[in-house]
C-alpha cells in the first residue's frame, strides 16, 4: 500500500491546474457570471486537448488512465468553478457514448427523478442526453433537439448553471448496449464528489486568505479564536472527504466490476464531500461577514455550486441508505 500520488498523477494534476489558472481566472469567472454561465466552447476544446475527456478512453486517442486520475483532475476542475455538465461529458467520453471528435457535451438524468422538477443543465448546448432508467436497469441516449421543445428555461439559483425544466414526457431514445448503469452512476457520483472536494478546498483557501487580511478591533480577524475554529472545522471536514474520494477512486480503478465495498466508499465520499463543500462554503461566507453576502464576492458562487452538486448524481439520502445497508451486511456477517 502506498496511498501517495504517483509522479505521473502529480504532473497530471499540476498540468490541469496550470491550464485552468491561465484560462479561467477570476476575471473570466466574473465575466461568465455576468453572461449567465454560457458554455465556453473554446475552453472545452482546450480541456479536451489537455485530455480531460480522453483520460479514461482507450484506443489511439485515449490516455487509458483510471478513475483515480479522473478524480484528481475533477478536484481541480471543481475548484475552478468552470460551468457546464463536465462530469456527464466525461462519462459520455469514457464510455464511448459519443464518437471521437469535438469535446462532448452531455448530461445525465436518472429516472424516476427525485423530488422536485426534472431539471437539465445547458440543454440547448448538449450533444447527448443520457437517461439512466433505474427500473429497467438500462442506459438510453436521447437527442437533445427532441427534448428541447418539451422544456422551458427556468431561473436557477446558481448564476453559472443555466437550467431547463422538462415538462413533457421524454422520448424513449435508444438503448445503449453494453453499458453498466450502476457503474456509470457510481462513477458520476465519485467525480461529482471530487469536484466538491476541489470546491471545499477553494472555500478553505478563500476563508483563510480573507481572515488574514481583514482587520477588526486592531488585528486580523484570523487571530480571533472563534474565526480560527470555524476555519479549523472547514479543514477538518475537507481532509477526510478528500481521502475518502481518493480511496473510492482507487477501489473503482481495481476493475470493471462494481464491488459492494466500492459502492459503499463512493457513497461515503459523496456524503462527506457534499458536506465539506456546502458547509465549507457557508463557513467561508460567515468568515467574510457582510462582504460575503454581496454579489461582488465570490463566496456565493461557491455555495450555490455546492448546492447544485449536492443534487447531482447520488444525494445525501441515497448515499446514507446505501452505507447503512452496507454496515448492516458487514455487522451481521
Amino acid at each position, binding site marked *: 500500500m502506498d496511498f501517495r500520488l504517483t509522479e505521473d498523477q502529480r504532473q497530471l494534476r499540476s498540468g490541469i491546474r496550470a491550464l485552468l489558472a491561465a484560462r479561467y481566472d477570476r476575471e473570466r469567472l466574473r465575466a461568465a457570471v455576468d453572461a449567465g454561465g454560457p458554455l465556453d466552447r473554446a475552453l472545452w476544446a482546450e480541456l479536451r486537448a489537455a485530455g480531460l475527456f480522453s483520460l479514461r478512453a482507450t484506443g489511439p486517442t485515449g490516455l487509458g488512465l483510471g478513475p483515480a486520475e479522473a478524480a484528481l483532475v475533477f478536484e481541480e476542475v471543481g475548484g475552478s468553478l468552470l460551468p457546464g455538465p463536465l462530469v456527464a461529458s466525461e462519462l459520455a467520453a469514457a464510455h464511448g457514448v459519443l464518437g471521437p471528435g469535438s469535446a462532448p457535451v452531455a448530461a445525465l438524468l436518472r429516472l424516476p427523478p427525485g423530488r422536485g422538477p426534472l431539471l437539465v443543465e445547458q440543454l440547448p448546448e448538449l450533444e447527448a442526453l443520457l437517461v439512466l432508467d433505474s427500473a429497467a436497469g438500462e442506459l438510453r441516449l436521447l437527442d437533445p433537439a427532441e427534448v428541447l421543445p418539451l422544456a422551458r428555461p427556468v431561473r436557477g439559483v446558481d448564476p453559472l448553471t443555466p437550467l431547463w425544466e422538462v415538462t413533457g414526457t421524454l422520448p424513449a431514445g435508444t438503448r445503449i448496449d453494453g453499458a453498466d448503469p450502476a457503474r456509470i452512476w457510481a462513477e458520476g457520483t465519485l467525480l461529482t464528489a471530487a469536484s466538491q472536494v476541489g470546491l471545499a478546498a477553494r472555500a478553505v483557501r478563500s476563508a483563510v486568505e480573507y481572515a488574514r487580511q481583514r482587520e477588526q478591533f486592531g488585528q486580523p480577524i484570523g487571530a480571533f479564536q472563534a474565526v480560527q475554529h470555524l*476555519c479549523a472545522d472547514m479543514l477538518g471536514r475537507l481532509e*477526510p472527504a478528500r481521502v475518502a474520494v481518493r480511496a473510492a477512486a482507487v477501489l473503482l480503478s481495481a476493475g470493471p466490476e462494481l464491488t459492494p465495498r466500492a459502492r459503499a466508499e463512493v457513497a461515503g465520499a459523496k456524503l462527506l464531500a457534499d458536506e465539506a463543500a456546502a458547509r465549507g462554503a457557508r463557513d467561508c461566507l460567515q468568515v467574510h461577514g457582510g462582504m460575503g453576502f454581496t454579489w461582488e464576492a465570490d463566496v456565493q458562487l461557491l455555495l450555490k455550486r455546492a448546492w447544485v452538486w449536492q443534487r447531482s448524481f447520488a444525494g445525501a439520502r441515497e*448515499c446514507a441508505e446505501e452505507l447503512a445497508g452496507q454496515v448492516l451486511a458487514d455487522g451481521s456477517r
Partner: protein
Amino acid sequence: MDLSDTAAEAAFRRGLRDWLGKTLPELPPPPDPDDWPGRRAYDTSWQRRLYDAGYAGVHWPVEAGGSGATPAEHLIYLEETERAGAPYVGANFVGLLHAGPTIAAEGSAEQRRRYLPPILSGREVWCQGFSEPGAGSDLAALRTRAVRDGDAYVVSGSKIWTSHAEVADWCELLVRTDPEAPRHRGISWLILPMDAPGVTVRPLRTLAGTAEFAELFLDEVRIPVGNRVGAENDGWRVTMVTLSFERGTAFASEVLAGRRALGALAARAARDGAWNDGELRRRIGLLAAEFTALWRLVQWNVSEAGAGGVPGAGASVFKLRFSEARQRLYDLAAEVLGSGALLLPDQADQADRSDPAEPAWTAQRLQGLSYTIAAGTSQIQRNIVAQRVLGLPRPGRSGAGGG
C-alpha cells in the same frame, strides 16, 4: 495511489491472520474493567504472546527491538488484530505508544537497552506524568520542580490524569528544571521509577464510576540524572515528539473498533426494530462514512510520513474528527437502546452477549466523554490546525481570546 497489499504485505497479513486464528481461542476471559491488577496481568500476558510470536512493537525499528515492519504493515497489524477481536494494548498503551517510541527516537543507547525490551515483552508497564492540576491543555504551565543534587534530580510536585498509575513500573515524567527560563525552555523529560520513595498514588474516580486514572504526588523523589531522556531543559521538544506519536497512529485501531461497533449496533437495531426508523438508519450510514474516511486518513498520513516519519500537525485534524465521531457513535447507540441507555453497564440488556463485537454501550458512552478532552482538547486541536496547518495569525492580545 495504491491501497492493495504488496506481495510482502499480503504474506505478513496471512501469517498474522493464521497466528491470531490459532492463538485467540487459547486466551482466558478478559478481567473485570475495574480490576486493575487483573487487567495488567491480562494485558501483559497478551503482550508476551505477541513478543514470543515476533509481533511485539511491529512498528518499532529493529534497532529498538521491534520487527521493523513498514508503516503499511503496521496498519495491516491493526486491521487484522481488530478484525479478529484481539485484546487492546490496554495497560501497555503508554509504554508501547508513547514512552517506547520516544525513548527509541530520543533516548541514549543505554536507555534503549534498559527500557525497551521489557516494554515489548510485557514485563514492565508505563504511565504518563504530563498533566498537572494547573497544567492540562496548557501543558507548558507545569510546575513540578526538579532540583539537581549531585547525580540525581530531587523532584517535588503533583501530576494528575495518570492512567494505569497503580499498576505501572515507570512513569514518563515532565518536570521543570529551570524555573527562570521561558516556560517552554526549562522543562526536562525524566523516567520515574514508580516504587521510588516519596511517590504516592491516589486513584481518581471518574464520572463513569471507575478508577481509570490517578493523582500522583511527588515528595522530594530522587531520580538519577541518567534517567533523563534528551538534554536538560530540552524536554518540551521531546514531549512534542511523544505527543505527535499519540496524535498520529495511537488512536488508529480505535477507528477500526468504532467501525466494528457500528456494525454491531446496526445488527442490534435490525433485531429490535429500530432499523425501521429511516432517520436513525441514515445517521448510521453517515457515521460509517466517517469511520471509513478516518481510516483512509490514517492510511494517507502514514503513506505521506513514510518509514520512520513522525506524524505532523495534520494529525490534529484526525484527532478532532475521531473524537467527535466516537462520541456520536455512543449517542446513536443510546437512541437504539432507548430507555435501556439509562441503565448502568452491569445491567443485563446493555449489550447483547451473543454478539462479541457489541460493547457495553453506556460504559463506553461515559468513558467516551473523555475523547474530546484527553490528549489535547478539541479546542486546542482547533487552535493547532488553525495556527500551524492553516497559518492563521496567533492572537495579538488578550482580547482575541486565543489559546
